[in-house]
Each structure stands twice: as structure tokens, then as C-alpha cells.
């Protein structure tokens, strides 16, 4: 597991400790994360990885799993 991914899982676990974020891949579709969680998550990720996550990146494909979030962060870091 990459360092980015494990940090993201740690942040997610802070939001919902009862969810298995290593396997769950429908965080948005199954309504596990609501809009409050998403904004809190973005604030945490921006703080942790020093990236800017613009509003147009807030789509289910980028937030449905910890892995999708890690991919988005890595993509933003590369830009």
C-alpha cells in the first residue's frame, strides 16, 4: 500500500471509524460519505498533501474509494 493511500485511509477512518475503507468502493453511491464529509475530507487532504482540489474534481468517480482518492491526489501532484 502506498504512503498516500494509507494516509487517506487514516483520514477517512477519522470520519467513519466503522467503515472498511480498504475494500469499500462505493463511498458516494452507497451514501457513506455525504457532502459534509466530502468538504471535511478535502480540507484534510489539502492540508496533508498541499494540493488544491477544485470543485470540478468533486465527482463520484474520484471519491468512491480510497484508491480513487489516492489516484486523484497523485494526478494533482503531477500537474
Amino acid at each position: 500500500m502506498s504512503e498516500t493511500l494509507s494516509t487517506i485511509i487514516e483520514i477517512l477512518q477519522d470520519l467513519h471509524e466503522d467503515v472498511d475503507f480498504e475494500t469499500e468502493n462505493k463511498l458516494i453511491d452507497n451514501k457513506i460519505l455525504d457532502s459534509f464529509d466530502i468538504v471535511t475530507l478535502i480540507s484534510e487532504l489539502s492540508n496533508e498533501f498541499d494540493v488544491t482540489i477544485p470543485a470540478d474534481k468533486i465527482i463520484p468517480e474520484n471519491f468512491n474509494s480510497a484508491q480513487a482518492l489516492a489516484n486523484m491526489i497523485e494526478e494533482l501532484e503531477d500537474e
Partner: protein
Amino acid sequence: MLFTDSLFIFGLIALFILYFAIAKKYRWMLLLGASIAFYAYSGWSNLIYIAVTAASTYGITRKIEKMAESASAEVKAHKAEWSRDEKKAYKEREKKKRFRWLVLLLVLNFGILAVIKYGAFTMRNVNSVMGWFGREGNLPVPQFLLPMGISFYLFQTMGYAIDVYREKYSCEKNFAKLALFVSFFPQLIQGPISRYNELSEGLYAGNDFESKRVMLGVQRILWGYFKKVALADRILPAVTMLISDSEQYDGIYAFIGILYYTLQLYADFTGGIDITIGIGQVLGIPMAENFQRPFFSKGIVEYWRRWHITLNTWFKDYLFYPLSVCQPMLKLSKWSREKLGKTVGKYVPVYIATIAVWFLTGLWHGAAWNFIVWGLMNAVIILISEKLTPLYEKFHQKYKWSNTRPYEGFMAIRTTLMMGCLRMFDCYRDVPLTFKMFASMFYKGNFHILWDGSLMQLGLSAADYIVLLAGTVILFTASMFGRKGEVRERLYNKSPFVSCCLTVTLFLLVMIFGAYGIGYDSSQFIYNQF
């Protein structure tokens, strides 16, 4: 023009016949013609506003797209010679230029809305504030006639422009087609606020006549008319009476008013949306659903996910998220973490964005303090209930009976009553009076009105009550069946003949139980005024 006007109904039937009679490639033009005629009927001057919105959106979105294309071509052309940082800096510069065009479009259009909808409200408040400081506040208060549906078509069109800026999809190249998207007549009165990528295909395709789809569409239209004319219009006199004389109708009357207004608003708003979506279904144009059985919600957050869905998702996508994740907000969050601690700091963007969104949601409903207070009260309850979520979860884990159907029913009733209480701001349109009426429910103690015949003096006869009660039971039953999927479709799949009988029954229900009578004049849809 109202959906209940006979001119609208006969015009609609003629449109359906014509739509399927003419060649496919002309069908969207027919819809555009019908939309212009519908809008012009409400006042020729209104056409100017919608034309300005359509033309400015068309011109600026095309400009934004062309700029994005040429920026992309420039980056490709210098792929080898530019470093990654140079490319990034160039892209950011170009994006800022496109953003300025978008801001111009938003300022122009929301500026029009601000002046005509909020100009008078703002000037009245400025005059009041000047009066507090001992200066005579006599600035002129402008009065404009609000163009029909402006809050709906403007939000829909600005959502489209933001999506084009975000490169979610390509802009519409044909001005007339964009004008149809902006002005599509069924949704002008009270929404839903559609997204271009979801609506446009059905709108321009020129769809085939499919008997099943048309039948289901007609049923949905009739179902909408039933809610509007048999329930909402029928209970209207009682609601008007209860609201208009707050001195006489306080205490338990105020509670009865909450229940009656809840039924009226639900039947009126969902009825109008049913008619809109039904028209779309007949024409083969799928539209976004605006309601998902809101009174089955177990809490306020869930309620707002199920009531007026398209407005709430609009605010979420185009205001809540951009505001929450913008640079100044993230900087504020970082500062709050350092000064106030991690727990408080990370929630700062959520709190500020929630309050801002609900302030504007209130303002969207009307230029008056009662709507603003209503919006802010929603924000406060949402934030408190979010904060208490861990406590609720512990409660549900500890007490297993709290996960049973009866307790869920209790939660749904509690949410419905809470939302009804908040709606008192909408009823009384006066903030201190609303609080006074709310308090009167707890100390007045006039319970006797429930059995001494007082409720029969509210402009409703025993027959009216029977129709309202039966109608409410029908609504509830339909909602219960609807939990397992679309009722009408399941019925049609089982037996087209039974489905046909349902259509006839709905037609008869509208004809027999509609609140017509001598001098009948259907009321305007409540959400039309927003």
C-alpha cells in the same frame, strides 16, 4: 398562464398531436415555438429577460470553449519546448481568462435577478438602517414585475455555463437549440432545474410515439392534476383563513394550519412537477425527479435530499462545494486549525458554506426576512443534527427497538412536523408573528376546537374533508407502493388494460373531485411566485 387554464390544456393536447405528426427534425423547433408562445402569453416584456439570458450565455460559453480549445492547441504545439512548470503556469493563466468571462456572465445574469427581485427589498432595508442613525431614509424603492420562472431558468442556464467552463461537456453550437433548453415551457413555472447533459438529448431528438411511454406520461399528468385541483386547491381556503387572521386563529389553530399547509404545499408543488415530468414523458424527454417521498425522511438532512432535489443539488454543486474548497476558505481552515485546534478548524469550511448556502436558499425563495430566517433556521438545525450524529448512532446501537418500523415512523412524523413548523415563516411572512404563533401552540390550550365544530367553520364542508382525507390516504398509499419502484410502470407491465383503466379513473377523479364550483379560478402554483 397556469397549467390549469383551459387554454393551456387544449394547447397541450394540440402540441402532442402536432409533435408526433410532423417530421422528427422539426419537432424541437415546435417545442421552441410553443415555449416562446407560452412565455409571451405571460407578457411580451418577459421575453426580453429570457432572451438576454439565452444570448449572453450562448455568446460567452462559445467564447470560453474556443479559448479552452486554443489553449489546449498551444500547449500541444509547445509540448517539447515548455517545461512542466511553464505548461502549468500557461494553463492557469488561460483558465483565469476563461474564468473572467464566466464571472462576467454570472454577474450580468444574477445582476438582473438581483435588481428586479431584490432591489426593492435592499432599498427598503437601507432606508430602515439610515433611519436608525437619525437620517431620513428616503432612497427610491424600485418596483419591477418579476418575469415568470426567472429563478428557475436562470439557475438552469447558469449551471450549464459553469459546466461548460469546467469542460464537463461541449457547449451548444446552435443558438435556437440553446434557447429551447433555456425556455422549455413545462419547467418554466416551477422547475425542475435540469442539467443540460441530462435534458438536451431528449429535447432535440424528436422522439418516436411509444404507446406505453405516452400512457404513463398521461397518467402522471393526470396524477399531478389530481393533487393540484382535488387537494391543494380544495384546502386553500382553509389555509388562507387560518393565516390571514392570526389573532383569532392561534394556538391549536396554528398547529392545524401547519398540517393543512403541509398538505397544500406538497400537493401543489409535487402536483406541478408531476404535470411537468408527465409532459416530458409523453414527448419522450426525461427530466430529473424533484421529490423522493420526502415525508418518509428520518431526519432533516435526509429530508433535504428528497425535497426539491434539483434546487438543492444545484446549490451543492455550484455553490456549496466551490465555496467550501476555494483557496481563501482553505486558508481560513488552516488558520483555524492553528488557532482554534484541529477539530474546530477542519469544520470551519463546512459551517461557513452551510450557512451561506441556506442564507441564499432562503433568499432564493423570496426577497423578505421571513425567507432568510427560514433558511438560516434550516442551517442551524442541519448543523446541530450533524453534530449530534455520533450520539444518534450510539443510541441506535444501544436500543435495538429504535431500528424498528414503528420508531422509523415516529422519526418520519417528527421530521414532517419539524419541517412544518419551519414553514410557518412561509405562511405568516412575518418573523416576530411566526415566533408568536409557534409559542401559542404550547400555551393557548384551545384543544376544544378539535371537537366542537370549529374546524367546520374554516371554509371546508364535510364533503371537502372527506375528499381531502381520502386524497391523503391515496397519496400515502401510492408513496408506500412507490418504495418498490415505479407503480404505474409495474402496473402497465402486468396488464396494459388495467393501466388503461387507471388512466380513465385518474381522469374521472380529476373531473369529479377537482375543487371547481361556480366561479372556480384555480390558484397559481405556490412555487411559481419564487
